[in-house]
């Protein structure tokens, strides 16, 4: 079996850390200059800057949904420059349960940290409804 690139291993771990609420270790995987672009037409869509910005996104999500996201990594691929994580994300809130497969893309900086982050769920309408 081919050995996974360390960034791919880290990327998969990051999803597990979000699921476990371990945001300090989750954010360690990101560059200080990281950007996090949230897709769709919902109140949380837009670009978040830096680790604080990324944390703000998850904090706001938890506030809106009560319970936030439950990401489950499917597969991560990476080299020294780019990475992708395929993951399933579920969430529950009154009237808008979420169950989507997401492709999360990232660029990797010279230190192996995720820098530019952007993603797309396979059901954008369900995503927007969940974050409305």
């Amino acid at each position, binding site marked *: 079996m*081919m050995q996974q690139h360390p960034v791919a291993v880290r990327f998969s771990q990051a999803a597990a850390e979000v699921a476990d609420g371990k945001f300090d270790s989750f954010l360690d995987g990101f560059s200080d200059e990281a*950007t996090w*672009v949230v*897709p769709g*037409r919902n109140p949380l869509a837009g*670009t978040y800057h830096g680790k604080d910005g990324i944390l703000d996104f998850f904090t706001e999500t938890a506030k809106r949904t009560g319970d936030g996201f439950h990401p489950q990594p*499917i*597969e991560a*691929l*990476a*080299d020294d*420059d*780019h*990475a*992708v994580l*395929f993951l399933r994300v579920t969430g529950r809130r009154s009237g808008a349960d979420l169950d989507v*497969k997401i*492709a999360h*893309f990232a660029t990797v900086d010279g230190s192996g940290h995720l820098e*530019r*982050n*952007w*993603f*797309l769920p*396979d*059901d*954008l309408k369900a995503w927007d409804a969940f974050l409305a």
Partner: protein
Amino acid sequence: MTDMTKIEEGLKLVNEGKLTEFGSFLADDVVWHVGGNHRLSGTYHGRTAVVDYLVKSRDLTDGSLRLQPVDILASDDHAAIFLQATGQRDGRQMDAFLAEAVTFAADGRWAEYWAISDQQDALDEFWN
């Protein structure tokens, strides 16, 4: 392991406008997600709908749309293609960094596809 040259071959066919030939890369029931908030955004179901979408993209850009791969990551099940997309439309220029993701069917054909940029506003402006 997915053959990366096969992915490059698919991009080459798209760049050359050989879209029906590219369609042979796609599963019959392929699901194709185009991100953003523009006229082509949305989810396309099935090979015919995806080829129609590609034809529309080509025609809207008078055949100028080009996808230049920067990096390709692939396993047996998935791939990601980071690329530079360029094109012209009605006097507008596109030069955007774009990422595409693919889930492969058991026979290696493309079963599901995602495309989005982290500079999506510029792409939306180009297409709208």
